[in-house]
């Protein structure tokens, strides 16, 4: 039995590195996480399932043979999920290039709402440590992020404002959302208020603040918030794109960015997108540096094609002729099934809800093996460690094994060699 202190959590992108986890044989159990998500994530036992091909128990080699055979003859495969560490993602991109597949992360929808705004108008954002030490006015746009990022307020908003002059106080305003009981508890001692949407939607509410900033529409909560932003030393406007209403999320984010930039001409103000569950940020970063494009990129025909609409996994899974789904960080299998075979690399060690063609249990970065994941602010890369040895291969090992098998037989054609 071993108690691991100062464990880094790879799960939601907040990068907490103060967890205590107990390891006993093949079992890990949380001792101190202060987080319900992490509690579930770090509670692992011996894997309940082994590799399977067409529902029958197989060795790892047989499963990799079967995966290679199915992927090797595919012409438009999807490599999705990508809930893996950086080395796993690198291996996924190499395999995608080998077989001409399309890559996407299972949780990329939120990421692309933000990217659309970045690519249209640009981006003015900050990171967690700046928020913690410098931000005297935090505006949370939309729903409380606590369900997805349980320790956000505790770790990044509740601590003292160390880098502002003594006496500076922090205010938190929820615009169009309300703090949960947990959020309120974490924010005890911080001045918290709510500005409900006055009949309209989020983009309307932000437009009203922008108008007030320019001196139009002088009364009401929008005007008060405009004044607060103008008078703050360092305002931060945060949102969790995955929790915004699908329709109009882009518009709301773009409106936030415009508001940030208008305030930033007067005093300092930055945006803060929250997200990055299951290393979505890392998957995108590696894809950008390796290809020059974000996720939702295809390697078909030995070249690159990026299309944020048509190449999303939700679209492509219906059209692909084979799908490899990677969920080492426990995001689970896709909620749609491909027409062709599904090869599932699964990190939970538990029975998947429906039987894939090939099932390969893999290790989880941060539990079974060390690895790198990106924090949700896209700047900080974290190294997570190994806590137990359950004999599970890493995503990288499995994908390299599959790629080597495909490389050793003549290509089916169409793909890069």
């Amino acid at each position, binding site marked *: 039995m071993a108690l691991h202190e100062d464990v880094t959590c790879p799960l939601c992108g907040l990068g907490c590195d103060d967890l205590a986890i107990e390891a006993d044989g093949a079992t890990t159990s949380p001792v101190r996480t202060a987080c319900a998500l992490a509690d579930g994530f770090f509670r692992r036992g011996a894997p309940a399932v082994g590799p399977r091909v067409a529902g029958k128990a197989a060795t790892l080699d047989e499963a990799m043979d079967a995966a290679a055979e199915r992927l090797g003859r595919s012409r438009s495969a999807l490599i999705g999920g990508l809930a893996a560490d950086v080395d796993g993602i690198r291996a996924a991109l190499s395999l995608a290039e080998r077989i001409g597949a399309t890559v996407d992360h299972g949780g990329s929808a939120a990421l692309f709402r933000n990217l659309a705004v970045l690519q249209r108008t640009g981006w003015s954002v900050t990171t967690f440590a700046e928020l913690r030490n410098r931000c005297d006015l935090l505006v949370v746009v939309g729903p409380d992020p606590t369900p997805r990022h349980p320790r956000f307020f505790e770790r990044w908003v509740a601590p003292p404002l*160390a880098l502002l002059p003594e006496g500076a106080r922090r205010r938190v305003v929820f615009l169009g959302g309300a703090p949960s009981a947990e959020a309120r508890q974490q924010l005890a001692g911080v001045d918290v208020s709510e500005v409900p949407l006055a009949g309209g939607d989020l983009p309307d509410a932000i437009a009203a603040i922008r108008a007030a900033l320019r001196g139009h529409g002088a009364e009401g909560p929008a005007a008060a918030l405009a004044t607060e932003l103008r008078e703050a030393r360092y305002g931060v406007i945060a949102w969790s794109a995955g929790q915004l209403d699908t329709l109009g999320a882009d518009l709301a984010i773009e409106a936030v960015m415009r508001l940030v930039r208008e305030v930033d001409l007067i005093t300092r103000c930055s945006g803060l997108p929250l997200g990055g569950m299951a290393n979505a940020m890392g998957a995108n970063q590696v894809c*950008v540096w390796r290809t020059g*494009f974000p996720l939702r990129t295809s390697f078909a025909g030995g070249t690159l094609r990026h299309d944020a609409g048509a190449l999303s996994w939700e679209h492509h899974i219906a059209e692909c002729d084979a799908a490899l789904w990677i969920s080492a960080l426990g995001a689970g299998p896709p909620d749609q099934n491909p027409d062709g075979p599904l090869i599932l690399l699964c990190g939970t060690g538990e029975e998947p809800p429906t039987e894939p063609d090939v099932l390969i249990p893999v290790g989880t970065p941060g539990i079974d093996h060390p690895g790198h994941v990106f924090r949700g602010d*896209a700047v900080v890369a974290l190294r997570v460690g190994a806590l137990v040895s359950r004999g599970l291969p890493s995503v990288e090992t499995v994908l390299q094994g599959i790629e080597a098998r495909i490389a050793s037989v003549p290509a089916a054609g169409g793909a*890069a060699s």
Partner: protein
Amino acid sequence: MRIRFRNGRVYDPANGREDATADIHVLDGRVVEAPGPGERIDEEHDLGGRIVMPGAIDIHSHIAGGKMNLARMLMSEEHHATIVPAEGACLCGSGIVTPSTHVTGCRYAEMGYTAAFEPAMLGSNARHAHLEMADIPIIDTGGYLVLGSDDLLLDLLARGERPETIRDYVGWMLTATQSMAIKTVNPGGINAFKYNARRLDLDEAGPRYGLTPRAILTALARAVHDLGLPHPLHVHGCNLGVPGNVATTLDTIGAAAGLPLHLTHVQFHSYDTEGDRRFSSGAARIAEAVNRTPTLSVDVGQIVFGQTVTASADTMTQRGTAPLAHPRKWAAMDIECDAGCGVVPFRYRDKSFVNALQWAIGLELFLLIEDPWRVFLTTDHPNGGPFTSYPELIRLLMDRDYRLARLAEIHPEASAHTTLGSIAREYTLAEIAIMTRAAPARSLGLRDRGHLGPGAAADVVVYDDLPDRRAMFERPRMVFKDGVLVARDGRTVTVTKGSTHVVRPGFDDAIGRVVARHFEERIGIKAKHFAISDDEIRGGDGPVRHGARGQG
């Protein structure tokens, strides 16, 4: 594996060879003395009088890290327009001004470059930069850690901590981030911008800490010197791009007070305010100061006409130039009580007075600075233009007629405002070999690179001696990296793995407690988790370590 290069005309300035007809012998990736008679040669290349140089080294090129990925995403149109399909040994990729990692390694190697250094690695983003550099094939890499606006350093300085403490802090940070050198970017300015200061002059006290950029710069230059780092403090000064900044730059040189300094992309810091447009060349004044200050080196940061994207930790300056963005979009980040980044696309036009004069100022600097050991060929990639324009730049430096022809094409008033037309100097091949090989290796303390003496890494480049120097340097006949033929006639033929270089100075570890407390209380990451271990570098290969001056 033994290789012999016969009948080459060798340019190896570090070993005093200029156009020396000689054979080069290589054993297992290293240059060796000629073997005794009867020794088996596995591979022989008769160079028939072709020119041989060591692999070139780029001392300042933004090739990896968060700001480059941000630039790639922002410049989506460029990437769609510049897709590189997989071909031969090369994987696919995209981008010219912000190429993807594979393209970066291949393009450098194809031009005879065997190393490039990322000059603006933020501590908080260093792990990302290293993960990304591991995916750059063939060439060697390394990063310079940005300090000077980090709240802990400013706090230590404001509290009047002793130079030894500052030295130890710098040593701790350099080691923890696996860096090769220390850079400062608009010292204090990035921090001041977080307190809403939009400008900070060299002798102006910044907010909160009350420190001047001069005080920060000199403290860092001293720490770098006391640690014995081979490369001097790498300085991106105050007031980048501001007309009249030539005075700031001269003051910055003065501030070093005898300590070694490297001023980077000095072209952007050599602007005077004469003439109707209040924008003129300060190149002659800067060159004169460089010529009389032997402890000073510079790289130019030449601009190249066309579309590019500027990416810098200097948020203060980038926020100021954002309204000039072309296309009209830009990105800015404040980062981790550490620094920041600003990404602003830009198109330099030869018919614009200001851009044309910037172009001329860069060339004036190259031509007026006398000592090629102290001026390096850079475009501050991609800020002045992509690194793939180096062959064109070499031609401009080596070929006066070509230079005059180009000068005749730029904005006429700009050409009237530069002395470029009257400068007769043409760089020699020996000077190019110094500026792109021997001098950067010496400046960085890379003892086994940048030369072809026994013990050197077998980074060997073979050129045809073409009168068109651009064509010559664009497509070397053969490029060997560590003894492996990686490119032939400007095409990659073998994709090898590069290495990452770091410096490991000695310092007093006791500073670790101060750093740990800062990380615990403010940064929200434990210092022990912030520190990057050797097995995280280059996919587990670990770094190539270099000692401080005087160490082994």
